[in-house]
């Protein structure tokens, strides 16, 4: 062990910090996927436990599901475009794509909440059966993540407006875009397993 290197004043560069944070956030996303996997496993086990009540075939409004799926997919796409213009440092385009992603995300959430409220009004709330508990929790947990993402976009959007594309703000935009892609990936499985298989 030789003492040839002296540590710099701040110990790490902006690049090192971003690499660290991105890795940490990535690992967090992996943990979130395991969390969703636990909920998926539970849904798979409870999907026929309707306790005499309605199952997916009777409850799901497929056209609406298609619309919200396309909205979310498109918002994941615009989140990707966001990272391209971000690398350019183009503040105006960043705000455009952030706003697009946000609006599409809100559209998704509105449709989902409408679906939920219809179910509840018809007496098919999470209290009715194991199946419905699992449905509301799995889909609702995804919706909760969407809501957090939307709030995050608002906060970062505000920062882009009033602080500009600083290193920190740029980093946060990369993180939210990663988060958003990951949420669409989870939705692929909700769409396929809960809704598509659910109505067969």
């Amino acid at each position: 062990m030789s003492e040839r290197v002296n540590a710099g004043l701040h110990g790490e560069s902006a690049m090192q910090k971003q690499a660290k944070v991105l890795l940490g956030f990535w690992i967090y996303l992996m943990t979130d996927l395991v969390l969703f996997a636990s909920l998926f496993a539970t849904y798979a086990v409870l999907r026929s436990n309707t306790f005499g009540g309605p199952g997916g075939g009777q409850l799901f409004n497929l056209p609406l599901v298609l619309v919200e799926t396309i909205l979310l997919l498109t918002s994941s796409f615009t989140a990707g475009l966001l990272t391209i213009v971000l690398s350019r440092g183009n503040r105006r385009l960043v705000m455009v794509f952030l706003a697009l992603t946000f609006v599409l995300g809100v559209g998704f959430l509105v449709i989902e909440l409408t679906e939920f409220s219809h179910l509840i009004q018809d007496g098919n709330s999470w209290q009715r059966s194991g199946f419905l508990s699992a449905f509301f929790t799995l889909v609702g947990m995804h919706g909760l993540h969407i809501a957090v993402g939307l709030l995050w976009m608002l906060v970062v959007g505000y920062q882009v407006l009033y602080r500009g594309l600083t290193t920190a703000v740029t980093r946060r935009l990369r993180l939210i875009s990663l988060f958003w892609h990951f949420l669409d990936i989870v939705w692929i499985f909700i769409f396929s397993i809960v809704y598509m298989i659910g109505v067969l």
Partner: protein
Amino acid sequence: MFGKLTISAFVHDPITNVAILGTIIIGIVGIILLIRFKKLSWLWKNWLTSLDPKKIGVMYIAIATFMLLRGLADVLLIRTQQALSSGASHGIINADTFQQVFSAHGTMMIFFVAMGFLFGILNLIVPPQIGSRDVAFPFLNSVSFWLFAGGALLVNLSLAVGEFSAAGWLAYPPLSELSYSPGVGVDYWIWSLQIAGVGSLLSGINFLVTIIKLRAPGMTPMKMPIFIWSVLGSMSLVVFAFPILTATLSMLALDRTLGMHFFTAEAGGNAMMYVNLIWAWGHPEVYILILPAFGIFSEIVSVFSGKRLFGYKSMVWALGAITFLSFTVWLHHFFTMGAGADVNSFFGIMTMIIAIPTGVKIFNWLFTMYRGRVRLTTPMLWFLGFVVTFTLGGVAGVLMSVPAIDYQVHNSLFLVAHFHTMIIGGVLFGIFAGFTYWFPKFTGFTLNERIGRWAFWVWLFGFLLAFIPLYILGLMGATRRLDHYDASLGWQGLFIVAGIGATLICIGVALQILQVIVSIVQRKQHLVLDGDPWNGRTLEWSTVSPPPSYTFAVIPIVTDRDDFWVSKHQSIPDQVPRHYRAIAVPKNTSAGIVIAGFATLIGFAVIWQIIWLIPVALLGLIISCIIRLSHDAEEEIISAVDVERQELTARRQRDLV
């Protein structure tokens, strides 16, 4: 206004009242002492708001020690009850209280003692061993600690305000559902674990990134100390297993608070799914605890045999194998739940397989000792105690991995003896070994060896006396969690022996506390001037003791495995840098306390169904998170002059040796 919280929540039985009173008195005395010696702001500035992992590590250990004492009090209650409650006698506590006592015992020991000591040691040792000053995310580290403290607070609060769970340390439904446990006990259990669990998960991410990204230049993976490999394995397990716990606890909470039917006995719930999920977390959890203990033993055996570790590569391989395999055995915790032979035999075989890499490790340790110059210091004694006890518990485990045999001993005292042997003989002995080994590094003086040896022998003897009877009782048919049994069974004698053993363990703990106190009193005679009392091999021993706040004035460049040992034995004169640079360390902040405080408040509000408080505390949590995350961490600069001064003092001290 206060939901379910009424005056009756504060009314308890006499024994509990004594415990509450005792805790309050100790707390008040502590606060008075702090005020008297004008240490309140010192405590706040130097410890509570610190982001220094060395400080955070010590705080983890402080809470873990407190919870150990509480857990031991439960042990004495359980052992006394079971030693007395035979035939006509019904012991000292009623059945209901007994259920709460063993539930609290298990919950506290696993989640707050074992995990607390683990994260304490990780905070202290991981950064210096890889040549880093800090963990990857210092603020997150603080949040993790305060979430852990919040969970511990809730568990302790349940003693005085309301009740704790009576559903065992894992709260199986349907017993843990609202219809069979209508009180707040299970809710306390859920929320203290949920909050502490999030803290653990965040720490897992933190230490993973630390090991991956913050190693000193030149420290390639195969040059890392084996302890770091074991932490890598353990943290990988944390990161992939704890989300399962979070999900499962959430589902149980949803059943209890929002009337869902995941695990209820009616309306389409499936209680067996809970058992399945909780053990899918639970099995990796025990490996989370044992892997770092294995790492500690690797360090200690190597240093006190004066030899490098035998079979480094196979140790790394074994750690990797255990990490992966620990996700493939979880059903062995519920062989008797009713699965068919194919399922049971698959998991039985996987359980047998996972014993193999562990065996490899034990042989590697023994081969390290062979032809080494073995010094039987206290840490080494704990290692030897571990070899004996862990092997005993391990073969009991392999016995139970055969489903047909497990059907006979599942949920008997044989099982109880097995897992206590593993956790005490493995995890706790590892923690004690690590504590006695690294104590001088962080305090600057050594522990009294003689009292340390007494403590070990009393502990070992007490442990064997406490648990060998339980193995026998289990084979004789004694079920776990019994608060009373028929006199004709002839079990009382063995329970009395176990009680004596437990008392000896308490004496052992008392001796450990005595050891620390005496060592503090005698510290001037046992100073460690060069920071290297044991002739260590790894980087943490290269700093002075106690290390300065910045640990390394200059980040080392690593060229070898056991780099410190190698550089000590090359005759390169100690290189003094021509000039020192200023060093930036994270500034203190109370944000961690605030965030964890709101989280704990949410837990309390949900437990007592104080409805208005839930959105208020949630809003507080969200706002404080947004505020903190919108500003980059602030740093404090230690000037080059200060660094130079401290390094000069350290060098002078070293030259005195």
